[in-house]
């Protein structure tokens, strides 16, 4: 448990340092806001419409594919840690699991989900 106290300390100090730097900059820097300065930057052209719009769906599909593989790969970590004690049988079992993962990848590929369309 005491390990996680140190991780927590790293989180706290990791937050304090950038917050401190930004706060110092905010105190030292000038403050002269005006509407043109605070306008959204678009290479000098006036902004048209919102940018909080529904954007390309392909990103969402990549995120979905990632999620599946990420979760399934995490299952492999306990297997990898104990591999040398488990012997050849566990290796073959792990390979079958990875082959199922690859079958999923091939399915996604064949369905055309990996194309940038």
């Amino acid at each position, binding site marked *: 448990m005491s390990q996680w106290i140190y991780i927590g300390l790293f989180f706290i100090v990791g937050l304090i340092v950038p917050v401190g730097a930004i706060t110092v900059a905010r105190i030292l820097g000038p403050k002269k806001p005006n509407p043109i300065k605070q306008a959204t930057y678009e290479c000098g052209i006036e902004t048209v419409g919102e940018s909080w719009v529904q954007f390309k769906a392909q990103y969402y599909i990549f995120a979905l594919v990632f999620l599946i593989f*990420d979760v399934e790969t995490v299952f492999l970590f306990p297997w990898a840690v104990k591999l040398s004690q488990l012997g050849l049988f566990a290796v073959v079992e792990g390979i079958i699991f990875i082959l199922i993962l690859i079958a999923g990848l091939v399915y996604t590929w064949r369905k055309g989900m990996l194309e940038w369309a």
Partner: protein
Amino acid sequence: MSFWKDPLKIAADWLMGILTSWGMPEVAAQILIGFLGVLILISVLMVLDIFLVWVERKVVSRFQDRIGPNRVGPFGLIQPFADIIKLLIKEDITPSGADKIVYNLAPILSMMSVLILWAIVPLAPTVLGVDLNIGALYIIAAGAIGALSIIMAGWSSNNKFALIGAFRQVAVMVSFEIPMLTMLLIPTILAGSMGMTAITEKQDIWFVLLSPLGALIFLITAIAELGRAPFDMAEGESELVAGYNTEYSGMKFGMFYAGELLHAFTYGGFLAILFFGGYRFFGLEQVSPFLAIAVIVFKAFVGYWIIMWVKYTLMRIRIDHMLAFNWKFLTPLAFTLLMVTALVNALLAGTSTWLYVAGMFLSNLVLGWAALTIARSYSRKEREKVEGVKKVVTTSRSTL
């Protein structure tokens, strides 16, 4: 036990003695000492970060046949401090359309996601933050906070360039996380542990000899996670101004920039720990922890230099090519490499060291060669398709 053998414990015991003599409860004193240690480590990292700005500028200028900063101080060494002062006294502009809370939180999280990675870096056998037994997963978890900070920055800026840049960067980061996770499994298999210290201690033979292909794939995915060239179309200054941090100025931009540099250095360090023996260098780490720290910092700088070398040599790849490269080449290759490593590792477990190393090395070489051959024949087919079409066009023109 002298100060030169175990500086962390000696200093902690000394402080503990002082604090308890002041009447502080032991638990509180321990937390305070831990806090001080973390603060010192992170302060050193921030100073190193400032120095990295200078290193980066000096190296890029050498690559481009320039001299680089050379006016402020000897070899321009004081230049980054001048840059810091400039960043500090710049006006902090928040665009009126932005989501204020998320906009201000993003650069802080970006920096934090890098700093917390150093919690598990073993700098020497006795000098380390935490010897976490799930270190490999912790790297991925901390990286996820970085991806979150980027999407926060891009979305909250309410700027189209920033949004597109953030989308691209996050798509790349999550995609390349799959081969990276798989490559973290290889040192885990070889060492039988996810802890960074255990992985380092197991490397009597550097893992790069057992899995050269794994080290190469880890380097590629690390560069993609960093969003550096050739995978920097999130930044794409010719099309997207500056990518996800377009609207940021002053110290907030500085946090993103410094975070990226430190991230590159950190991944250089992780490359060293996972595949190049960490703080170990022919028994040098046994002499003194200070030498061990020097060894790992040197190795991290070599890794960082390779990342810079790649950045300033290769050109930017289009996003669809990049994602295709990941999903159709790197991910299958990584999974195959994992299977081969597990199998060869189990088959050659009882044999002599030389046979084991040679078997692992050769299986990696064969796999890498096979993957390149398949990719080459595929690209030749694609090229013939395009060139065939071109030939038709030229002949029709000549007949006209």
